[in-house]
């Protein structure tokens, strides 16, 4: 399981790294990072197994590393023996396999074409916008009515490429089953919450959970700022909230020039 999670994390790194490394860096760098991750897992597990360190959380300090490795906090009562040492060696030996499987699973997603990935990102953006700005209510148009996702996509096309990459990774992380599970208890992607397509109730709960989490706060704010851009800049929404700008090339209807001043210097025109 740990190898699987590490593999998924590595996949995120791969997606991001692929964009970075495709700009000229060495792909071997990613391989080195992967090997480093496995080495860290080996070292940490081995130190736990020989009881050189303890498992720091959530167990108390007196809960030794060997106990944790053999019993994993369950009342199994196993103690170290030749058999468990051999079993441990086998398990350690297949860490790279689990890592490889996790990575492959991630990379399988990574192998989708750019167009497919783009479609998935569009879907996440569209559902996020629809959750924040559903049709009806005090401001009638919904995000779908004003084509918010297209506006957001245009925005992502003009921001710095690295920021676009980071936002893409954030959107996929936001959509991830792992985070949805952590916040809602459901093993689903964000876009698959709410079986009834007309409802955004579960998705709304997920959003509220994000905004209340200290560590995800900055990310939530970035997503809000990005998605609101696709909604509150739309003319039908302007009309709905009673905003009457922009007005160029004309002067604002409320323009008040005040008392007409005398020209302050020769040749300067007075205000019309």
């Amino acid at each position, binding site marked *: 399981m740990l190898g699987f999670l590490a593999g998924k994390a590595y996949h995120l790194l791969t997606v991001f790294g692929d964009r970075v490394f495709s700009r000229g860096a060495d792909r071997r760098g990613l391989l080195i990072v992967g090997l480093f991750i496995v080495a860290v897992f080996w070292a940490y597990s081995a130190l736990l197994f020989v009881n050189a360190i303890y498992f720091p959380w959530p167990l108390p300090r007196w809960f030794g590393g060997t106990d944790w490795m053999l019993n994993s906090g369950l009342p199994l009562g196993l103690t170290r023996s030749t058999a468990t040492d051999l079993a441990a060696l086998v398990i350690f030996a297949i860490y790279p396999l689990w890592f490889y499987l996790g990575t492959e699973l991630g990379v399988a997603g990574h192998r989708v074409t750019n167009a497919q990935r783009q479609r998935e990102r569009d879907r996440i953006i569209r559902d996020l916008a629809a959750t924040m700005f559903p049709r009806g*209510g005090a401001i009638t148009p919904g995000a779908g009515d004003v084509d918010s996702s297209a506006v957001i996509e245009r925005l992502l096309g003009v921001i710095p490429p690295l920021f676009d990459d980071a936002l893409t990774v954030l959107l996929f992380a936001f959509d991830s089953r792992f985070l949805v599970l952590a916040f809602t208890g459901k093993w689903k992607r964000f876009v698959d919450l709410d079986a009834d397509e007309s409802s955004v109730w579960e998705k709304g709960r997920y959003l509220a959970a994000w905004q209340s*989490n200290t560590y995800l706060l900055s990310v*939530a704010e970035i997503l809000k700022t990005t998605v609101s851009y696709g909604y509150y*800049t739309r003319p039908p*929404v*302007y009309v709905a*909230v009673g905003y009457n700008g922009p007005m160029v090339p004309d002067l604002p209807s409320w323009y008040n020039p005040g008392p007409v001043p005398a020209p302050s210097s020769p040749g300067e025109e007075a205000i019309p």
Partner: protein
Amino acid sequence: MIVQGKDIAQSVLERADVCIVGSGAAGAILAWEMAEMGRSVVLLEKGGYHPRNDFNQREEDMIPMLYKNSGLQFTLPTGFAVAQGSCVGGSTVVNDAVCFRTPDAVLGWWTDQYKVDGVDPGTMKRYFEKVEPRISVGVVQPFELNRNNLILKQGSEKLGWSGAPNSRNCKNCRQCGLCHLGCSYGTKQSMLETYIPDTQSKHGDLVKIYADTTATSVTRSGSRATGVIATVAGTGDRTFSLSVKAKLVFVSAGTVASSELLLRSGLNINGLVGKGVAIHPSPGVVGDFAETVNGHEGIPMAYHCDEFSVVKTGKRGYMIESIFLAPYQFSLSLPGFDYDVKQLMSRYNHYALLGSLLHDENVGTVRLGGPLGAVLEYGLTSADAKLMIEGMKNSARVLLAAGATQVITSHRKKTVIYSEDDLDLIESRGVGPTEINVASAHPQGGNRMGGKPEGAVVDSYSKVYGFENLFVCDASVFPTSLGVNPQLTVMALATRAAEHVGENWAKYAGGS
């Protein structure tokens, strides 16, 4: 001459007396002053060149065009939004034209605590008086106060608190309310309408401005800066290198970018570059009125209440300022990451908006890293948190005194104040990173000015300690935050630095 990225199809080598990075409140003035002294200048600007005819008053187009990172810049881990301009003219193109001279108390701190020479109020007055006429600074007239501003005025007066119309750098303002999207009428006297065109018309032969050009490093030889390496977003989506050889280098790219450039160039000699950043965090407080306010019709920031600010008290506090924004930017001041923000926005035309500009401590740090190349780490100290709560409470008091039926704070969890009795809710909700939504437009500090090398990055005249001819001149050199809108201070310090360099040209540039 202004060279845009689309004009570049090959790598470029330039030689000039002076290379300036950044074309905002400091960079544009430095270019003018240097040219007035007969020095040739190459000025590099990361953003694009957009004359006023490009400004169509639409958030959708203007925010990506004029704001750094398309407006997406946040502090970590607090998530405070930090707005900065990124275009020829810098933040002066997108600010609300508010002009305050540096408060005397602040100048006193700089003199006494940081041993900065020549920043006493009497000396600085000379530079303010030089800059102000050039950008047409004048006090807002009574007929120019819209309902949103009058609400602040009336509320403050009812409470017996001191306040006044703002001074602004605007000439014959059309009151469109969209200063922050670029002034379509050209009445806001930003750098784009003043120093830059003046430099072009009078010294076009001496000053060359490169837009769409990102400085990547300052080159050096020993203790001398020798120039700047940059990349230009050139024609056909290609980038080209631009190398500038110069006798003297000014870095004037703003708190984040100036610090980033110094760090990236390995010029953090005393380990202080990027340290001591303040941002003037300004939580908004929204008043809901029964009558229509139409806060977007008219000058957004035309009045302030200085009862609790350094201007009146001589100590750190907060300035309550009226402000208003077009729907998108306004929506970010309302709570919620879900459906609720839409419900709240339906009252847009009935809202008044006040911000309490916090005179914060310099505790932030710019460091290299993250997808954008640099991150701004920032959090509130406990003293700042206390002041922020007080500022929000008193902003709410003003709105209630002016007749608001309810006041909505910028807490992430919707917090509504109906009367004086509810004000403690602001305190109980707190101002921690998960509790509040805060915006800022005044990053400052990071390359502190000081009379002695210990504790400072630049000396009293903006020269980087340890270097003979490298200067940093922008808001990043403020030893402390100001407590008032900073553009006029930046302009005055730039004028002062230019004068000093002119008087000591041979010493710094190593020639006649």
